[in-house]
């Protein structure tokens, strides 16, 4: 992979949005959102259909104009200096947007040329991408005749043709089979390791666990932001732990416990401030109080649960 030489010189913030708003008539699709995506981050924009994810993405790529606010990509204002910003952005739209009457190779070549590559460099780049995304043997096939997964791989290869520092993926795995979805995320993580900043939207909560940071969107607003773990904590007000013990005690007496979700005769579901720090202390304290601890472990909370809680709150 050809490395972007200027990577080191790029500003710390890959994407910065302030007060970003888009109105379509009376409908506010995106409502004064702020976003900061750091260089090298794998950032997920999460939310149900119609939350305003695609509209936000389209304002970041500059294919629609914000009604209010601004977006900067590596410090470049997208609305004002779009062409300069485009050099750093690779974009894979939600809907397959390549030419179905051109072959796989012709599509990548066309985009290479439109990006300004010529001669040997163009040839090498096209070959490299065809091989990397397992498209080499299908290179002479018309894009319209590809399967869904192959179309997505072609779209990803095309988005990368100019080796952009920021890769923006709008629902890249929508309609892709689960095994292939995993494969895709492997590609994304690999690209991320190579130093590319990734902004990805999805409504699959399980996928979002792969992201370094997330923003949850609902009805045009960002309702929560942080790492998957932070988001879950915010949703519940802490970490969820399960304790099973013999003996009688009031769970609220245990250290770090904020609330009791479930109390079923010796089995407790508790919200604590920080499971890593609090669990050993809880075990110790419970035994001091004369109970025998049979089980003490953190409980996995799905993002979905967290998300549903946030949605409930925001409405």
């Amino acid at each position, binding site marked *: 992979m*050809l490395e*972007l*030489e*200027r990577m080191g010189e790029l500003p710390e913030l890959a994407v910065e949005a302030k007060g970003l708003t888009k109105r379509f008539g009376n409908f506010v699709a995106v409502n004064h959102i702020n976003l900061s995506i750091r260089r090298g981050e794998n950032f997920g924009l999460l939310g149900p259909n119609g939350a305003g994810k695609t509209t936000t993405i*389209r304002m970041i*790529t500059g*294919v*629609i*104009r914000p009604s209010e606010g601004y977006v900067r990509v590596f410090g470049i204002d997208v609305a004002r200096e*779009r*062409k300069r910003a*485009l*050099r750093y*952005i690779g*974009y894979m*739209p939600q*809907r*397959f*947007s*390549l*030419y*179905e*009457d*051109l072959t796989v190779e*012709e599509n990548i070549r*066309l*985009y290479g*040329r*439109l*990006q*300004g*590559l*010529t*001669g040997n*460099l*163009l040839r090498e*780049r096209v070959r490299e991408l065809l091989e990397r995304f397992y498209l080499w043997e299908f290179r002479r096939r018309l894009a319209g005749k590809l399967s869904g997964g192959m179309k997505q791989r072609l*779209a990803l290869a*095309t988005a990368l043709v*100019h*080796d952009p520092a920021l890769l923006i993926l709008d629902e890249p795995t929508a309609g892709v089979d689960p095994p292939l979805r995993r494969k895709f995320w492997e590609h994304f993580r690999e690209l991320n390791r190579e130093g590319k900043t990734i902004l990805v939207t999805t409504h699959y909560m399980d996928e979002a666990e792969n992201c370094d940071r997330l923003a949850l969107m609902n009805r045009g607003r960002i309702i929560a932001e942080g790492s998957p773990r932070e988001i879950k904590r915010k949703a519940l007000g802490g970490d969820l732990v399960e304790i099973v013990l013999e003996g009688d005690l009031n769970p609220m007496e245990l250290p770090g416990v904020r609330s009791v979700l479930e109390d079923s005769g010796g089995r407790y579901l508790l919200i604590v401030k920080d499971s890593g720090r609090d669990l050993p202390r809880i075990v110790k304290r419970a035994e001091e109080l004369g109970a025998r601890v049979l089980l003490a472990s953190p409980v996995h909370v799905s993002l979905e649960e967290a998300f549903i809680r946030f949605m409930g709150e925001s409405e």
Partner: protein
Amino acid sequence: MSLEEGIRKGLRIIPIVDKEIRQLVRDPKTILMVLLMPITVTILFGYGYGGKGAGKYPITVVDLDGGDGAFKFIQELRNSKMFDIKAIYRSKGQGFSSVYSGRVYASLVIPETFTEDLTKGRPTRVELYYDASNPSVAQMIMQAVGVVTQQFQEWAADRFGTFAITPMFYTVYGPKVKKIESFIPALMAMILQMVPTSLISVSICREREKGTFEQFIMTPVSVFDIIFGKLAAYFLATISDAILSLFTAMLLFDVRLKGTFLDMTIVSTVFLLNSLSLGLLISVFSRNQLQAYQASIFSFIVFMLFSGVLVPVDVLSSEARLIASFVPMYYFVTAFRSVSLKGWSYLMVVDQLTTMTLFTVAFLVLSLRFLRMEVT
């Protein structure tokens, strides 16, 4: 060399032209519209307005003799299969008027004493009054009459002894053009407007409709690249239209145009660019392909009505003439008539060419101005 150093700035027209041509070639609609339609329309026009029969020259005969010799000569003319004898008259006046009016290319007069001269072995003659405004046809008719006369003389020499029949040729100036030729400008106007405009009119809105525009504008292409890239590609694809139609008309219907191929091509090219620019403008403003087709057809109807193809613009009301002055096809029809039928050089229709080009520039400027590099 790193990728960073290899990235070139500047225009992106060539990859766009390349892409558009590949797409056009793969689209069966293109073959249908660019190749089949001009030929079909030309053939329909040819049969509808040609009416000259299968390669025969329409002539009339004036039989002043009325005897067996004249009867035999007329039979020879028919047997030669080169003439389509439209009428046999008894007076020269009728013969002349058939040429003046443009109904036939020539009138052959058989003099009063033809049979008598023939049977007595005296030298005699036939007189051909031909339309000199169409020299190439006149040439062919004179040759054919010469051949028939020669054969007739040999037959007569056998029977009545040695003598001579001399064909005499006289020129008459008929109206400048006839039938199918006069429809060539209309035919060319139709083909050079309908096909290119409707073909290119969907080119941008189709990209919007299919979603390819969203990816396309993520590259450093400019409005300029898109407009001129598409214009160049569609120009290359549709220029064959003009040439194809001209050749079809010439080969199948024996159309003899006075203009040189170069002059006709220059005038056609200027109008073709105008049609394509209009189509691009339609595409910029259309929301979808259906709208674009409708707008193309509408503009075509307006153009046909006010271009002088159906009714000469001079006889229209002053309001209609005002509309005509905003119809580029009107200038094309005027210019192409002069070049193809009168044999003028393109330099003599420079006014019309300039006006058409001004329209083209206006359409392109508006397209550049209003093409939004955004999705909706």
